[in-house]
């Protein structure tokens, strides 16, 4: 993975020093809260319901065991012994003290991490496929390009006060595991007609109050044009994005107001002016330097060990189920990609305790060449596990409750912090996820239901990606009580779609019952191996509406 050199180290160290000064000025009263707020946000520090929250970047989801140990240290020393992984490859701490924040940032800098631009109206953490560099279906590793974009975006003098936040995601595989089409800019690495790999550029996707699937404005962009093209997009957005209404300030609104064609024309017009400027060209040596950090690790020469694993699997049904749910094929013979589920029944999705972090770090060194990944579905990934080690790893993961065999199933729920932590929330999200997790514990039943994503957000901001869950759950508030609005048919994949509203909102207690009704109806309707999403797309909303509201309509009274 990428390592900081002297320039990267200096930049981050200077940033920490600057923030230390700003915090001191705030504490002494030299800065008012109004003046300080944008400064702390640019360093990832929010003020939430209970305390300050610090959001730390995990660039394109890559993490080393050493970094994870430091995250554990920070959780213990400066927080309450846990961290929360978000849907944008960040980790959040919920009880950081303002006067200790500069020390936390220094502790992060010591392991080449930072919280720069994890909030604010600027380019946020660049996200990517968590299987980058390892997936069998991958065309090219997106990580070197993510790193290049990261550097271009950090402290950009022109684009640090955009109309609104700006999120970029990159995938190098045809199967989209990074919700690329739901980003302000999404990039797919793709070959053109001549077989040369470049980028498909998608603009104007996003969730929140006004959800949109992005538009492709360029089928293929040469790699050497990446920075100039991004700069052109950002410039058109910086000048033309709305600044009168924060709800309408994202690039998606601009793109949809102008039409994708007109937006593309404006971008192209600007791009032609800057395309060949040396300021936006990247020296070949620098691309090679960055790419070298993502070279294949020291894999051993192994032969495929599927037969051994198959024998172990047939001898142990639980190991078999875990393999089926959580283990993914690797492009290198003898290796496997392993998902660590942060969705054990009853646990807040995405939470990891300091003790678990330390244990995972140890297992990372033992089983995955010292490196792990974070996925936008709030799970962890070991990218380089030898197949012959799978059983030992599985046993070790069970000891820290990270072997729940539910990846991609109904209980692999995305949930934002919701009203338990978030100052913007309308309703809680975590307890709803916990209830569903407790309701569906039968592993065989989950496997039978198959691929089904449930995404929960505590408000319209949609950090829990409810619009693109196969089943989406949105928390709303009515007369001081929490209710939940269900949507069906969303997808964040290459076939991205936004969910349709099922009907009137229901109480928290009714949610697991409603999910059960939807699943039962799906099982009755599915044809062959059909996924829930495909059944839904074939039969539409009505059968499910009837299943949930029909014979046995949910009570209106919420249970507080």
């Amino acid at each position, binding site marked *: 993975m990428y*390592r900081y*050199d002297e320039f990267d180290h*200096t930049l981050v160290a*200077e940033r920490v020093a600057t923030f230390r000064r700003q915090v001191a000025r705030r504490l002494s009263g030299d800065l008012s809260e109004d003046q300080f707020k944008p400064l702390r946000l640019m360093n990832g520090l929010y003020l939430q319901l209970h305390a300050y929250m610090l959001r730390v970047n995990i660039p394109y989801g890559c993490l080393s065991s050493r970094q994870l140990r430091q995250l554990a240290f920070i959780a213990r020393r400066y927080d309450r012994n846990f961290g929360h992984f978000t849907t944008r490859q960040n980790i959040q701490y919920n009880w950081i003290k303002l006067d200790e924040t500069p020390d936390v940032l220094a502790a992060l800098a010591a392991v080449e991490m930072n919280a720069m631009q994890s909030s604010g109206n600027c380019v946020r953490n660049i996200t990517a496929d968590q299987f980058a560099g390892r997936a069998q279906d991958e065309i090219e590793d997106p990580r070197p390009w993510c790193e290049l974009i990261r550097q271009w975006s950090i*402290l950009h003098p022109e684009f640090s*006060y955009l109309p609104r936040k700006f999120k970029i995601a990159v995938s190098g595989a045809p199967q989209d595991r990074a919700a690329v089409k739901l980003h302000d800019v999404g990039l797919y690495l793709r070959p053109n007609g001549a077989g040369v790999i470049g980028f498909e550029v998608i603009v104007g996707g996003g969730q929140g109050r006004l959800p949109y699937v992005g538009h492709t404005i360029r089928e293929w962009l040469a790699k050497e044009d990446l920075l100039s093209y991004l700069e052109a997009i950002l410039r058109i957005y910086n000048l033309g994005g709305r600044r009168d209404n924060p709800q309408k300030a994202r690039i998606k609104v601009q793109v949809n107001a102008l039409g994708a064609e007109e937006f593309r024309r404006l971008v192209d017009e600007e791009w032609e002016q800057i395309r060949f400027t040396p300021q936006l060209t990247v020296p070949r040596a*620098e691309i*090679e*330097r960055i790419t070298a950090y993502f070279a294949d690790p020291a894999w051993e020469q192994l032969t495929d060990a599927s037969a051994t694993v198959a024998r172990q699997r047939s001898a142990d049904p639980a190991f078999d189920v875990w393999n089926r749910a959580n283990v993914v094929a690797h492009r290198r013979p003898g290796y496997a990609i392993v998902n660590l589920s942060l969705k054990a029944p009853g646990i807040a999705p995405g939470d990891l305790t300091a003790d678990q972090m330390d244990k995972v770090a140890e297992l990372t060194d033992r089983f995955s060449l010292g490196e792990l990944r974070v996925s936008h579905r709030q799970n962890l990934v070991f990218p380089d596990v030898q197949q012959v080690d799978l059983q030992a790893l599985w046993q070790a993961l069970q000891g820290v409750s990270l072997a729940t065999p539910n990846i991609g199933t109904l209980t692999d729920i995305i949930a934002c912090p919701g009203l338990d932590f978030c100052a913007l929330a309308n309703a809680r999200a975590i307890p709803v996820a916990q209830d569903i997790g407790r309701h569906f514990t039968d592993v065989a039943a989950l496997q039978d239901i198959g691929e089904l994503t449930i995404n929960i957000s505590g408000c319209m901001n949609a950090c829990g990606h409810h619009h693109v869950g196969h089943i989406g759950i949105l928390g709303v508030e009515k007369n001081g009580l929490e209710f939940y609005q269900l949507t069906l048919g969303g997808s964040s994949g290459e076939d991205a779609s936004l969910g349709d509203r099922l009907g009137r909102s229901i109480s928290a207690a009714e949610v697991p019952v409603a999910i059960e009704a939807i699943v039962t109806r799906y099982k009755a309707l599915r044809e062959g191996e059909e996924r829930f999403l495909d059944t839904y797309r074939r039969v539409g909303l009505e059968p499910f509406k009837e299943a949930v509201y029909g014979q046995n309509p949910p009570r209106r009274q919420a249970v507080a």
Partner: protein
Amino acid sequence: MALIREGRLVPDPFTDASGLENLPAGVPLIVSLEQWQTRRSALLASGQRLGLRLKSDQPPRLIAADLGYFSVIALEFPKYRDGRAYTHARMLRERFKFAGEIRAVGDVLQEQLHFMHRCGFDTFDVTGPDPEKAWRTIAGDHTVAYQATGDGQPRALDLRKGTGP
């Protein structure tokens, strides 16, 4: 008016007349785009030195052909959060090759001086009691840049010698 140039308070010979009904005679004037458009020939005939004040929704390309008449372009930040003038400044310097003074006016905060400077601003009407101190405070905050702008500071990308892992 507290105008900062290269870290020092400097006198401002210009009168900002962009909000005035009657334009003073005999002094260097900063006028609004509307004033320039409606009184152009009178202003040119007066022989006064001229500056132009642009609002954040008035991109410099609107007056690209007239830039030669102005020794100052003042770009307005109606709120510090409105980042359009960063782009305007780069356009003036890098695209239209404007060599005169680019002045930051409006809600100009200490913590933004660095980015402004990098985008091509060279004078700053800084909000706050002690602009020289503000400048000193932020000087040296950032010595490394990942981006090249018109100011000529090299990017980290160009300084590295391709030494990899």
